């Protein structure tokens, strides 16, 4: 019988090694590496913007967790239906959303992804397959099941994706959603980013077992538990579950074990306010860096020259700075937006 411990996956002293890229092509790995770097530098920029008072609302940063969204998104298409939560910058960017649109949204600008009405916690980019994220913990999980059910009815082989965290697994509606998805054979993928923390509190103080995939097993849903800081593992596991779903075989559950380097919200590390969160752990987890490990793995196979990393980084730094500058100069929504966007039937012109 499985004991539902995460074992070495949750041990920050382990899994520091280079990622095994055997059999992987260079081109997609480069795309994934670049996207992870873009997400990281964008979130570093947001951390600074928040610290310096340029961003008015909360930002929940996922630095350290980039491989999860990037690995999953590599298996998705624009007609799929992705839903997220409060920590979803990586989820939306990995679907190919505009960095400027994300920044503008977080700055409350009319040019933002949600036209300045959502901020960091309510992101929307349906044309790119990102149906929406909201900060009510687990709020979008049943929505993803419904969008998956719609995909099944519409017959295009698309899937619904619910990103959620280990904390969301403690919400009742998630258990209803797992059962419902299984009973309706909805092509849904539940992606749990298990970063071991809900807000300030370690999973050992919230759940009797660390592996949330035990609930997938209880609902007869196929699951995989993987190192969420290994983009190759994430992608290959996602590919297996997504292809099942596309083929009409029902939902899948991917538990990606990872860790966030920042605290729950904003730019601080929150060592002091975390229960069972220590600087020793954070430092150890930094050594399980999904980006550095991918670079090391690609370098070992001759797929990447470490010198190119500096170039790539410099290029992205410029891209981020330009998007940030542009977004800051954009206009805020008109005051009429206070009431004119309440009903979608009113149209999007106001």
């Amino acid at each position, binding site marked *: 019988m499985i004991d539902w411990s995460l074992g070495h996956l949750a041990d920050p002293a382990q899994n520091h090694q280079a990622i095994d890229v055997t059999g992987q092509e260079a081109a997609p790995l480069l795309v994934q590496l670049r996207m992870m770097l873009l997400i990281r530098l964008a979130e570093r920029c947001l951390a600074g913007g928040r610290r310096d008072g340029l961003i008015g609302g909360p930002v929940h940063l996922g630095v350290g967790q980039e491989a999860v969204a990037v690995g999953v998104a590599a298996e998705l298409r624009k007609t799929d239906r992705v839903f997220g939560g409060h920590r979803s910058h990586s989820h939306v960017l990995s679907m190919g959303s505009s960095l400027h649109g994300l920044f503008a949204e977080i700055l409350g600008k009319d040019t933002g992804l949600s*036209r300045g009405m959502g901020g960091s916690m309510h992101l929307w980019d349906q044309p790119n397959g990102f149906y929406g994220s909201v900060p009510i913990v687990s709020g979008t999980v049943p929505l993803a099941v419904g969008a998956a059910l719609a995909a099944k009815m519409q017959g295009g082989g698309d899937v619904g994706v619910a990103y959620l965290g280990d904390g969301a697994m403690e919400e009742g509606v998630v258990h209803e959603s797992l059962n419902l998805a299984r009973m309706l054979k909805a092509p849904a993928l539940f992606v749990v980013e298990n970063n071991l923390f809900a807000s300030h509190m370690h999973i050992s103080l919230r759940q009797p077992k660390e592996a949330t995939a035990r609930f997938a097993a209880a609902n007869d849903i196929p699951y995989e538990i993987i190192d969420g800081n290994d983009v190759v593992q994430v992608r290959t596991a996602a590919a297996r579950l997504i292809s099942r779903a596309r083929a009409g075989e029902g939902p899948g559950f991917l538990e990606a074990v990872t860790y966030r380097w920042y605290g729950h919200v904003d730019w601080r590390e929150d060592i002091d306010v975390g229960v069972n969160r220590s600087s020793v752990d954070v430092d150890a987890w930094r050594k399980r860096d999904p980006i550095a490990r991918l670079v090391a793995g690609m370098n070992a196979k001759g797929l990447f020259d470490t010198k190119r990393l500096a170039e790539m980084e410099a290029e992205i730094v410029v891209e981020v700075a330009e998007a940030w500058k542009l977004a800051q100069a954009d206009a805020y929504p008109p005051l009429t937006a206070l009431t004119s966007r309440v009903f*979608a039937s009113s149209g999007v012109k106001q």
Partner: protein
Amino acid sequence: MSRNRHNYGTALLAAFEYLLEKYPEVFVIGQGLWSPWYVGNSMTDLDKKFGAHRVIDTPVSESACTGAAVGAALAGMKPVVVHPRMDFMLYAMDAVVNQAAKWSHMVGGQAGPGLTIRSIINRGGEQGAQHSQALHAWFAHVPGLRVVMPATVADARDLLIASVLCPDPVLFIDDRWLYDLEADLPPVVERSLTLERPRIVRPGLDVTIVASSYSTKLALEAADLLQQKGISAEVIDLRVINPLDSTDIVNSVERTGRLLVVDGSWSPCGLAGEVIASVVERVAPTTLKKSPARITLPFAPAPTALVLEQAYYPTSAMLVSQVEKLMDKVC
């Protein structure tokens, strides 16, 4: 019953048949849809006619089913999620209030879930506190949600169709106590829900009675009784309580000078109070011949014992008596 003759329940059934037949993106999901127990005669054999994949009976999961309907709506479907008893729908509050109602605003009006949540008020029969509630006022408090309460056979069919075709989230509330109402219905004409508003269902001169759903039935019965006493009551059926358009009510009160509001729920922060406030704010103080009055439930949960239950719900006799007070016929 002839083909055009309907009761409130079969009118709802006719709306479902019309929608499922004409719109492939319409589907229905909720508990009890494959059983005659839960939804009276309002959904009989829909699963057999349109298939169990479009008329989906579900696990006991109000929250996930409602959330799934929101997600399916965002993905281009027109789902109807059915809650056979409003009390149980409280498990779905997040999906209704936080997700469906706020979605359009949160994403800048670029998308919105066009789902219909059908919730049934199903009370009486000594069922008590958790099988009796009419919580429409809670939902009328929330921006971004349309709340519809049909009182007539025609509205049961036509407002359900309008709700499902509306691109916004709609809470459609029907009342089992109305299911035996009968009327002849003309062929369906699709309407835009955004244009629907309160309607004068009986013109009168002396007093304005405002009601919705089952309370409208009481108001019409009371108006008949009042007529026999020489009092001419105008009855306004609210029909759509969110957003509430009180223009016709204000105009009516300007003519009659007297206002009674009847609501089958509680007074505090409720629909009756909202209607009265919206009138008092807009008429000149001299317009009112008497202070407005309201008839609602005692401020207590529904009882079980029949003797208490009979005293709990308003009756047309109570309306008559209240109107007589407004008319100064009784001291």
